[in-house]
């Protein structure tokens, strides 16, 4: 997906003026956020689980090469094929190649953020393959030709009425008011596609290295359909999704659904161990696992940023972020939005359009770090991204006038005379510039700063002391 981070200012402004989006965001706040909090309150050992999860992820990342090799070994033993994709283009080529080679005409897709990252749908469509998103939210944004606005609920920004109108226009549906009827309509449409699809493409929630199992969580049942009906199943995922053992998986499974929606467990938890074996009634003939790097190993190598890869894509940080809850996901300009998006997008893309905007789109309040199931210290990473942007040509650098401004401010604040002089000037100028640009963010300076009245008092105090 092409980044549009440079539009942050405009898109965020429009977002604040969009009543439908604001209504949707308020409902995320009232529902998803509240349900997550309630689920964790209920857990007697929530903090301990989070610590465990963080340790599991850190350990895995520390030995990622070993676990990936083990995973490949197991998957291959199970009859699956593992493909390694260094970047987005390589990943697309692999899937497109498979599709071409196997005569695939239709693909049904479970939700996969990585597939958005690499632009898979566009790539397949360009080669004449019909791609249908089957997660209802993804289905909706596919019809609307929009990018996802939330990691877990990609169409969360759309109201029921907007979706009803979309169904009319794109699917020839009658105008419906009842969300159940709309879901049923979509279900029927999608059922036809499941039954005729040649290939199912999914992401991965987790990959268990010790067994080679692919783990997928869902509430809708579309993943079960996408992975058992078509003759080929392709899972496209980032290399960081590995967990060492079933025991490790069990810790993360307790945290992921609770963090996402407040559910104790998703409606379906599926464990895939290779393609259908002789004698088994269901399953694809082929199973392919595409492991995508696309900048992840570079993040892994950077000690300051490595913990970004702990992320298990729960979306809890989005649901609790005061900024996200005001501007929604599109303003972040790429696949990943909210706090984790502010952290991943600049690192994966290393594009100045993203490094100059997203790391600053935060108050560093820390609400995200409080809810992250794997305790990623997002504010710390954002501060580090800001400092890289400031001086490092690989990430920035910041424009000269901005550098100059900070240097000037630093000089003034480290020199008493300059500082006191600046204060006096500000007091004189304020009434004149009060309504202009940056002055608007500052409150009126006091007529007498603390240091001045204190000087007076201590002088008076000394006088009194002499007298008394």
């Amino acid at each position, binding site marked *: 997906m092409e980044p549009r981070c440079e539009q942050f*200012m405009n898109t*965020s*402004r429009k977002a*604040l003026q969009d009543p439908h989006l604001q209504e949707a965001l308020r409902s995320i706040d009232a529902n998803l956020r509240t349900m997550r909090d309630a689920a964790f309150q209920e857990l007697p050992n929530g903090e301990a689980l989070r610590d465990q999860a963080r340790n599991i992820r850190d350990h895995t990342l520390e030995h990622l090469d070993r676990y990936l090799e083990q995973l490949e070994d197991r998957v291959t033993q199970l009859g699956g094929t593992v493909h390694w994709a260094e970047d987005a283009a390589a990943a697309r080529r692999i899937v497109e190649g498979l599709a071409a080679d196997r005569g695939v005409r239709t693909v049904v897709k479970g939700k996969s953020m990585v597939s958005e990252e690499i632009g898979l749908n566009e790539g397949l469509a360009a080669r004449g393959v019909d791609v249908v998103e089957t997660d209802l939210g993804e289905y909706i944004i596919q019809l609307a030709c929009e990018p996802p606005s939330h990691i877990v609920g990609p169409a969360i920004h759309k109201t029921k009425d907007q979706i009803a109108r979309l169904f009319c226009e794109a699917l020839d549906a009658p105008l419906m008011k009842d969300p159940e009827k709309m879901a049923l309509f979509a279900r029927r449409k999608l059922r036809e596609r499941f039954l005729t699809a040649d290939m199912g493409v999914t992401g991965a929630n987790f990959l268990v290295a010790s067994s080679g199992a692919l783990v997928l969580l869902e509430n809708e049942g579309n993943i079960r359909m996408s992975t058992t009906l078509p003759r080929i199943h392709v899972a496209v995922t980032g290399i960081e999704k590995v967990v060492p053992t079933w025991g490790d998986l069990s810790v993360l499974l307790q945290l992921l659904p609770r963090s996402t929606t407040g559910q104790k467990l998703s409606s379906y938890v599926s464990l895939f161990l290779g393609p259908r074996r002789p004698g088994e009634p269901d399953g694809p003939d082929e199973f392919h696992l595409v492991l995508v790097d696309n900048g992840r190993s570079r993040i892994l190598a950077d000690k300051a940023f490595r913990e970004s890869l702990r992320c298990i894509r729960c979306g809890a940080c989005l649901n609790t972020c*005061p*900024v996200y809850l*005001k*501007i929604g996901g599109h303003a972040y300009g790429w696949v990943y939005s909210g706090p984790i998006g502010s952290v991943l997008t600049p690192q994966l893309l290393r594009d100045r359009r993203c490094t100059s905007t997203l*790391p*600053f*789109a*935060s*108050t*560093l*309040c*820390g*609400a995200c*770090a*409080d809810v992250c199931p794997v305790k990623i210290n997002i504010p710390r990473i954002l*501060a*580090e*991204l*800001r*400092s*890289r*942007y*400031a001086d490092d040509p690989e990430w920035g650098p910041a424009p000269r006038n901005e550098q100059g401004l*900070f*240097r000037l*401010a*630093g000089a003034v*604040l*480290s020199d*008493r005379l300059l*500082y006191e002089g600046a*204060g006096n000037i*500000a007091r004189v100028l304020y009434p004149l510039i009060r309504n202009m640009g*940056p002055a*608007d*963010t*500052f*409150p*009126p*300076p*006091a007529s*007498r*700063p*603390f*240091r001045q*009245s*204190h*000087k007076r*008092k201590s002088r008076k*105090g000394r006088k*009194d*002391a002499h007298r*008394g």
Partner: protein
Amino acid sequence: MNGKMNGKMENPVEPEGIPGYIPGMRVHLFIPCLIDQFRPEAGEAALCVLESLGLQVDYTPEQICCGQPFFTAGRLDASRRLARKTLSNFRDGQIVVAPSGSCVRMIRHHYGELFQGDPVWEKLAQELAGRVYELSEFLVRVLGCEDLGASFPEKVTFHDSCQVRRGLGIFEEPRALLRRVKGLELVEMNRPGECCGFGGVFSARYPHIAEAIVLDKIQDAASTGAGIVSGCEISCLLHIERHARATGAPIRTLHLAEILASGLGS
């Protein structure tokens, strides 16, 4: 306000009665730039509160900024420069009290990081980190004093600044102090810990979002029926007050120190 007006100390609370008080106790009072220039009353109130407890308070006008806004903006060189000044100004081993959560958090949690590996400054940073306190935590946890003899018969709600609550773990202390203020009715917002939207460089870059966020905070505060929002972090209070005034919301802000100094020495 200053209890020294007649050369006589009026102590509502006898220092001997304060658990953590050491006779002749001397502390530095660090008044950061924002309080100095935009809310000097909060600085004066903090001074008054400490002196009313019998402490000897040193203020040095050489001390201006702890370097935090530069640190969070990613300008580490400028931040270090200001941090070195701070470390030099307070190198005498004396306790430093600041009515500012962000400054204390900066010194306590980030100075060591700023000077990591530096043979001289890292040690100084760690040393200072061990004796710097935010005002409410100093009063309650170090001095063991909750009742200063203040009186303020108003309805007050308290905003938990991110730097104070998440940054320093301070939540109970301001409330313990406010509950002992005579006549004060403390009411809680729905989300006292929700960010006010200021975020330093954030509100300069994206003022439209900072505004949208603070309007929610103002609504939450106003819905308590309180006319006053208090806090331990002046940047939040200034941000809240500015937008409350702009929208005509019936709330004003007072730093915790200003409330605690109310009715003292009178």
